[in-house]
């Protein structure tokens, strides 16, 4: 503990900022503790070396260069860049736009049912792809039939079911999935469990 206290006094001792009592205590400790004595000798030697470094002389033309550059800066219209505030109007505009959208969006939602058959069809359109299986063949053929109706002049079917044109849509039919159980070596087509064909329309 006394060694720790002694080392905490090294800085103040070097700066000559310790009291006479502290100095005497430190000297007594050094007499009894050669390790702390050596530590302090190295500490003061390091700082002596630091202080002994020669002064770095400035460049001989520093005065002229500084003066010439200061003249240039003074003659230029305020070369010191003012704080750039370009982001302020941009941020404000973005905030206003977001606020306006937030205020208008409920009004748009209210107006949507009153927009007519297009909006009604849109709201009834399925949000998720529909999985249809051969178990209900009439439902599988329904979208195709509907498109056929659209071409034959059905007024409801003539209306697009979304904002996009689906006339060139492709129906993806998943290949029959074969769920295989057991080890591959023992698998035979007869033991395989046949999955169902699935059609996904978008």
């Amino acid at each position, binding site marked *: 503990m006394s060694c720790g206290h002694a080392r905490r006094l090294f*800085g103040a001792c070097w700066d000559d900022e310790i009291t006479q009592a502290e100095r005497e205590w430190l000297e007594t400790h050094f007499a009894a503790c050669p390790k702390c004595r050596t530590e302090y000798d190295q500490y003061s*030697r390091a*700082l002596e*070396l*630091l202080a002994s470094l*020669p002064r*770095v002389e400035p460049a001989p033309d520093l005065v002229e260069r500084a003066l010439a550059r200061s003249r240039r800066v*003074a003659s230029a219209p305020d070369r*010191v860049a003012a704080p750039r505030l370009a982001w302020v109007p941009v941020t404000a505009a973005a905030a206003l736009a977001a606020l306006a959208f937030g205020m208008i969006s409920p009004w748009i939602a209210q107006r949507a049912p009153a927009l007519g058959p297009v909006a009604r069809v849109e709201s009834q359109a399925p949000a998720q792809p529909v999985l249809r299986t051969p178990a209900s063949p009439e439902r599988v053929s329904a979208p195709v039939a509907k498109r056929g109706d659209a071409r034959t002049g059905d007024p409801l079917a003539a209306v697009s079911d979304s904002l996009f044109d689906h006339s060139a849509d492709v129906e993806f039919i998943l290949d029959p999935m074969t769920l295989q159980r057991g080890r591959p070596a023992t698998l035979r087509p007869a033991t395989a469990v046949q999955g169902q064909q699935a059609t996904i329309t978008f």
Partner: protein
Amino acid sequence: MARVAVDDERAFTEVVRRFQGRVTNLISRVLNDRECADDLAQEVFVRVFVHRRNYRQGSKFSTWLFTIAANLAKNEIRRRVRRRNWFSLDALQELLHDSVAQLADPTEGSEATLEREQLREAIGRAIATVPEKYRMALVLRDIEGLPYEEIAQVLGIPGGTVRSRINRARGMLKRKLQPLLRKTGNP
């Protein structure tokens, strides 16, 4: 400085002439780079000129001047750290510098001169490896000899923090110079 503020060119020249040595020495010891120190010292005085009307007459001019110098030196250290992370050019230069020192012909000067020069270089490198926030306080105190209160103003930190940084910096420097201290301590 009051005359500088009213665009007295001769007064500004006098200010540069009077403080150029201290400013160059401070920056050079903090960066351990003589060429860069010259450029930054020039920049310090240009900033003094540009901001001459911001200087408050009641405060000590050298404190204001050292604040500008310390800030520019800190910016340069940070710029170097970023550059070092991107491409270690500094490390390469340091390596080349070391190699040149090793290959220097000892017959060029006396052995004592060479040893002294190597010792100074080693001390300079040791200072440069102390972390920036401790290094600045160390140089201001133990090379420039500024009082703790003025260092606190220059660095914009409390006096207690200055003392603790200087104590830590001294400890770090002692450890870095340990091999050298053993060598020079036992001739």
